Structure formats: C-alpha cells, structure tokens
C-alpha cells in the first residue's frame, strides 16, 4: 500500500526516538527552481519554502512543495502556470518520497561529501512516477545540505501546454533543488 507523502513526512518528523532524532534532519525553507528554455522565451520560477526531511539512519527522504509558492518574474505567467498548466487548486503540491541508495553510512558527526543515488516516487499534477536522481549530500559541522538537478517532461505528468504557446514553454523543464537541513531536536 502506498503511503501518502504527508504521512511519511509526519512519521519521519514525529516518531523518532531520542537517539534516532539526532540522525533526522529537516528544512522548511528548501529551494526549488525550474527553468524552461524555449525559442521565444526563457522562463524561470523559484520556491523557497520547500519542506524536506531525511532520516540518515534509514536513509528515507520525503520532499513536499506547494505549487502556488513558485514565484515568477511575470505575475501573468504565474497565474497561467497555476490556473491553466498545473491546475494547482486541484493538485496543490508536488512530492517525492524515497530512499538514498548506494551510499556509505552518513553520520552528522563526520564531515564529508557524498554522491548518492535517490530512488523513489515523484508526484506532480496528480501523476505519480517512479523516479531516481543523483544528488550531492554534504555534512559539515553537524549540518547537512543537499543538491540535485534533473529534467522533467511536462507530458509525463499530463501537464498540457497549449499549441498557441508551444514556442514559449519547453517540453522538458530543468529542475534544481537545494536544501540546507537542521537536525530535528
């Protein structure tokens, strides 16, 4: 049975024992941005209120962001993005839940940089897809940061781009995620 990301987020956040809590890290101010390069226009948007939690012991990770918290330079584009393309009243959030695979043990007490593979399920616009990406995890002075980038095809998530604006919006969007975590105490 697939568990909703919000349940995963709350389980990771709320059920740690004192010992395990030291190995769980969280951010409510993660940054997500996407970039569309098309013949007539380049579009980018940024969201600085992404929630993400990592359990370094179990290597589970959960990420959630609200679509309406992406900010564009042009407010009209933001409106079209929410109302026409993403239908964000119907599908308010994008989520990822999965696990860090193929990595050594990561401890908050040991500084280091790790190239890791993250495998799980990505949900955008109400469509769920198996997903994997490479990410860089950095541990420094007891804190964790993570960054990754990947490409998303709008058609894979049934995001329909009208033919009228097909030269304004790319079919494949570049996504960047950048998180600075704090230990959950």
């Amino acid at each position: 049975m697939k568990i909703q990301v919000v349940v995963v987020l709350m389980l990771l956040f709320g059920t740690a024992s004192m010992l395990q809590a030291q190995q769980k890290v969280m951010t409510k101010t993660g940054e997500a941005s996407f970039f569309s390069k098309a013949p007539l226009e380049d579009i980018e948007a940024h969201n600085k209120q992404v929630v993400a939690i990592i359990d370094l012991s179990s290597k589970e990770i959960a990420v959630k962001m609200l679509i309406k918290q992406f900010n564009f330079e042009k407010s009209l584009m933001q409106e079209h993005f929410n109302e026409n393309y993403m239908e964000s009243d119907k599908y308010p959030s994008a989520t990822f839940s999965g696990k860090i695979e193929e990595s050594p043990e990561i401890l908050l007490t040991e500084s280091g940089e790790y190239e890791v593979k993250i495998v799980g399920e990505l949900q955008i616009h109400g469509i769920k897809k198996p997903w994997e990406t490479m990410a860089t995890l950095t541990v420094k002075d007891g804190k964790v940061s993570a960054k990754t980038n990947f490409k998303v095809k709008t058609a894979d998530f049934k995001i329909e781009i009208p033919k009228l604006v097909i030269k304004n919006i790319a079919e494949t969007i570049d996504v960047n995620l950048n998180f600075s975590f704090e230990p959950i105490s």
Partner: protein
Amino acid sequence: MKKVSWLIKATLITLCFLSPLILASGCAGNESLEGQASAYRVQASKLFNEFSENETASNEKYVGKVLEVMGTIKGVNINPEGEINLSFEVNDMGAVSCSFSKDDSPQIASLKAGEVINVKGLCLGFLLDVVLENCVIINPKDV
C-alpha cells in the same frame, strides 16, 4: 484617409477598454482579501486536524478558497520571501501558517504569542503546516 482615421479611433477605444484588464492581470494574485467573503470560518486546530486526517478531501474543500481562521498565536516571524508570517498554535508537529503583505508588517509584528485573533486568507494547501497567504486581520467587531 477616412479609413485610416476610423481604424486609429477603433484601436484607441479598444485599448481604453482593455487597459484596466491588462493592468489587473499584471497584479493578479495580490488582491486584498479585506472585502471578500470567506467560504469557511474555522478554528485553526480543526483546520489542521482536517488536513492531517484527510489531505485529499481537505484540498478539495479548502484549497483556493478564502478562509476565516480563529486561534491562538504561536509566533510571528519573517518567511523566506520577506513576508511577515504568523502561525496559529495547533500542536508540536504543525501549525496554520499565515503570510501577510509587507505593508501590514508593523501591525502584525506587534502581535504576541498567546493572543487570540481572527485572520482571513487564501488557502494554498498543506505542507507540515496549513498554508494561507494574502492574509488580513479581522477586526473582532466586524465578525
């Protein structure tokens, strides 16, 4: 010549009608909710519990709607977008989070944890908190 003159007049008249729409669309999403009716009046704790228990149903019920939320202030801070943010106390795991325009910062900054207030805002959805934006304080006399 008469045809060109007519065309210029028609274009100018069309622009006069369209310009308010163009200006309004440029400001889309930042309208004040002060005069708008709320779709629901709800206690912050009840709102949070509904989202926790059934996010799908709560999204359908509340997202994109103007809500009036009542509760006890947990804290006031500045969010990553530079907006002043007020959170309602719910439990240790989450809150109802309300962001206000920078113009309202002095009024919101003067509020203290433990105060009971009413806020009206547009519901965006649920992260670890229920998120409202474009919020305004409701004067208790107006309730």
